[in-house]
């Protein structure tokens, strides 16, 4: 499942993502302020590129996070069951 994560509910969202062996995590809006150390050990982590670039915080996220644009976000939302923590 895909876990859409904003900053306020990231901790509980990550707890659910950790239970899912096929979890995809997408950091959106202020969720991109999540640090690399806070990220759960899940197969795939994405962050919305525009949200990252606006805040100039790409370094905080580390190498594991793949940046995606809004078109790619829509594709992910349409092709996965979405659990919303945003």
């Amino acid at each position: 499942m895909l876990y859409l994560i904003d900053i306020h509910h990231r901790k509980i969202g990550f707890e659910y993502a950790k239970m899912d062996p096929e979890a995809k995590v997408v950091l959106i809006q202020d969720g991109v302020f999540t640090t690399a150390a806070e990220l759960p050990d899940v197969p795939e982590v994405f962050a919305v590129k525009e949200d990252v670039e606006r805040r100039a915080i790409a370094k905080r996220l580390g190498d594991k996070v793949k940046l995606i644009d809004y078109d790619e976000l829509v594709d992910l939302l349409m092709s996965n069951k979405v659990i919303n923590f945003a």
Partner: protein
Amino acid sequence: MASNKIMVQFLNRPFGTIHYVEGLRASLGIASGWDEHEVYLLFMGEGVYYALKGVNRTDSLKYIHTLEKLGFGLNVERESLQELGIDESDISEEFNIVSRAEVFELMKEQDFTVDF
């Protein structure tokens, strides 16, 4: 459109925002439409503060009572209570306490989740 299973998650503290009243209103809308969707109401994270005994729910009682008549009760996540240091005995009796593992299994069955 066929009936769907929809989980409504209440993640925010109950006062100072419109989240929980709007969430309950939306839940009623989901549950009472032509398609009779199944709605699962879950209070988790800081949303569990809504489930404390003695909380003033005057502004949302009509939604809760109607949802109950439709067969949809209120659920609160056990681990969120533990993380916030809330004893289960302090939770109002109309709330069913469910584990995170149970919620995760339910999430897999849902067609949609919505958070407030």
